[in-house]
């Protein structure tokens, strides 16, 4: 355990030192504090508005958390997932004589700082939002940190480190826990309709005595009730059972034999995690352990040379995919289009309907502007730089499919709205054009951010630059629209907005190709 203590302490100290040295840390800290202060006031008002600003409300909150979080965590442990091991752990820790159980505890304790911070944050929240006495919140903090963590670590060791239960049995345990969560959700939905589609059912449901009798999960709820609402026969008995079960589980975990047979699964998870981490750093959507897309055999006829080869290679890649250039994002766009159409049907000022579809597209582009683009992937490929052709041509042929995809997405957003607000064909085309321009800006801004910032601020910094860039593009369009509306009229405002977006796109594209040329050098 001494080695683990050393590893934990030294890593933390060095991480802290490293963070302090980076000026960007200060900015992130200020942003995080501002965000939490904002959240604090937003949620304080919300808690008061929905009338749960009492100890009963806090118990409800903790009960809901216990019902979903504990079984959720146990499911991941039963699947031998949920604990994050890094490749360095496999290389240096797994092969060492450190006990495999200590290694499990080490992986769990990696998140302990977050757990302590959340626990500490709940003290003022409990006192100011839910009007619970300070001593009770401190007591809660101690119980949650000592008893809850002991219980969860014990269960984690028993499930994750178990070498006697077969994989099949562990799967069954996971499924039973999943069924429990599903059952809670079904009961919740049923009660929601029973209570005239209101959330009034939550209170009676979470304070149901039978719920407190559910082993471990229910007993933990009983413990909160005893702590915050006072003693009843039921919650005293269930709290007693909770404490006894914690002790028994701790002893079981301590005595259980564990030689490290879980290393194989942990190693697989570490690989998946590392892959997801790298993809996440690049701004891609990454799911740990997500199934890799199956690619089918395909071929393509290259009808051109040099930069055109990039276009045909991309076509080949898309042809190998199950749904060609279509994907989940198309459904997102369609969903947004339908939702906006639904909201627009009762729109009071129908003359502004022209802007609805374009606005929805702009919103979509802005929200997803942090994610990596196909062009960002091309930039990682050395051949993009080595192909003997002009940067502008490379930029165009590497992004042309993305523009086609933007047209499809734009249509999916605009058409439902167009049907509902009865837009004419020209307005539809212009709205789609606006969306395509914004998506193109996003693509070319990735080149700008890469060329201007390089590795100075990391991926998050570049994502911020792209988001700021997108905000400026959108704001310029809005400004133009307002100006044209004031001096000419509403149709001119719409046309002016589109024209401005087209001009901005052209400027950014030229700028990106110039900077791309510099990157090649």
């Amino acid at each position: 355990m001494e080695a683990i203590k050393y590893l934990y302490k030294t890593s933390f100290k060095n991480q802290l030192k490293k963070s302090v040295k980076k000026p960007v840390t200060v900015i992130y800290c200020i942003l995080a504090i501002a965000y939490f202060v904002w959240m604090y006031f937003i949620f304080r008002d919300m808690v008061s508005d929905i009338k749960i600003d009492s100890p009963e409300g806090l118990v409800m909150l903790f009960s809901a958390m216990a019902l979903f979080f504990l079984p959720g965590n146990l499911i991941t442990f039963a699947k031998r997932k949920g604990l994050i091991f890094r490749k360095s752990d496999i290389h240096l820790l797994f092969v060492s004589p450190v006990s495999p159980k200590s290694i499990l505890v080490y992986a769990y304790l990696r998140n302990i700082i977050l757990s302590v911070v959340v626990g500490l944050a709940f003290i003022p929240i409990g006192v100011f939002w839910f009007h619970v006495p300070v001593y009770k919140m401190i007591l809660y903090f101690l119980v949650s940190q000592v008893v809850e963590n002991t219980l969860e670590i014990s269960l984690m060791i028993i499930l994750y480190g178990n070498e006697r239960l077969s994989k099949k049995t562990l799967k069954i345990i996971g499924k039973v826990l999943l069924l429990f969560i599903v059952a809670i959700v079904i009961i919740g939905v049923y009660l929601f309709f029973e209570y005239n589609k209101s959330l009034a059912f939550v209170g009676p449901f979470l304070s149901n005595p039978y719920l407190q009798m559910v082993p471990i999960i229910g007993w933990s709820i009983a413990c909160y009730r005893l702590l915050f609402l006072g003693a009843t026969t039921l919650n005293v008995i269930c709290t007693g059972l909770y404490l006894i079960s914690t002790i028994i589980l701790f002893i079981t975990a301590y005595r259980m034999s564990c030689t490290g047979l879980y290393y194989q699964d942990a190693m697989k998870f570490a690989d998946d995690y590392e892959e997801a981490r790298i993809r996440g750093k690049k701004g891609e959507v990454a799911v740990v352990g997500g199934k890799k897309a199956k690619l089918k055999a395909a071929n393509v006829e290259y009808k051109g040379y040099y930069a055109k080869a990039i276009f045909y290679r991309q076509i080949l890649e898309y042809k190998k995919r199950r749904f060609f250039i279509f994907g989940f994002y198309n459904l997102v766009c369609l969903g947004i289009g339908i939702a906006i159409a639904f909201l627009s049907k009762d729109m009071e000022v129908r003359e502004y309907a022209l802007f609805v579809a374009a606005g929805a597209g702009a919103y979509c582009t802005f929200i997803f502007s942090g994610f990596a683009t196909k062009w960002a992937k091309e930039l990682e490929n050395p051949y993009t730089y080595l192909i003997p052709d002009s940067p502008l041509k490379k930029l165009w042929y590497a992004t042309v499919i993305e523009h086609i995809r933007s047209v499809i997405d734009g249509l999916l957003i605009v058409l439902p709205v167009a049907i509902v607000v009865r837009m004419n064909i020209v307005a539809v085309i212009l709205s789609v054009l606006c969306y395509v321009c914004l998506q193109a800006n996003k693509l070319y801004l990735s080149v700008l951010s890469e060329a201007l910032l390089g590795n100075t601020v990391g991926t998050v910094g570049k994502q911020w630059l792209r988001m700021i860039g997108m905000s400026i593009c959108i704001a310029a369009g809005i400004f133009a629209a307002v100006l044209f509306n004031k001096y000419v009229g509403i149709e001119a405002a719409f046309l002016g907005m589109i024209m401005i977006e087209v001009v901005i796109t052209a400027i950014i594209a030229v700028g990106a190709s110039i900077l791309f040329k510099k990157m090649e050098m």
Partner: protein
Amino acid sequence: MLTIHQLSKKFGKLLAVDRVDLSIPDGTVGILLGPNGAGKSTVIKSIAGLLRYNGSITIQNLPSRTVEAKKLFAYVPEIPALYDNLTVREHLTFICKAYGIKKEEEYIEYLLERFDLFDKQDKLGNELSKGMMQKVSICCALAIKPKVILLDEPMVGLDPKAIKELKDVILELKEDGVTVLISTHMLEMVKELWDVMFVMNKGKILTTYTKEQAKHQDIEELFFQVTGGEE
């Protein structure tokens, strides 16, 4: 001494290693050769205790998964992975603590000097090049003064001086009675090191040669004779 008896490993339906037996006595350098996909990595990961398997593996006659066996065993993986937030020196200190080695400072200094890491000792794991990481990985393995050491493609990424140093270290380990097993494709690099050669293909050990049996036959010739030209 490293002994493997009837080691088998399946990944789903794929039989990656099929009833492998091998034994390397103290003070002997074994080399594990085979084309890509032969099962070498699976054997190595099984010895390191990273995989579940059927059969038995012992280190100095102790089951390989026991704490006692692990104290005697060192492993240099093909792709080294270090902690982002530990310096070179802190990695070595951590390893010494993990293996219960006391009064380690002098030996750490010696290893850092020998592998040209002394001036890099305060660099963090994520600030090192691949070659540097490999050197740290080798130093970590040597720091525990093992009785059995497993090296998976240890020369990859090393500069010529470090390769020479590693070869010297391997010969010194051999003289000190340590069991060494090297898995590699770089036949040229292990020519002067090996005592016993295991050639694997399709999950099985096809043949075992001792240096005496091979007489003066070239290592590459022997390898291609057995594998039929597969690289």
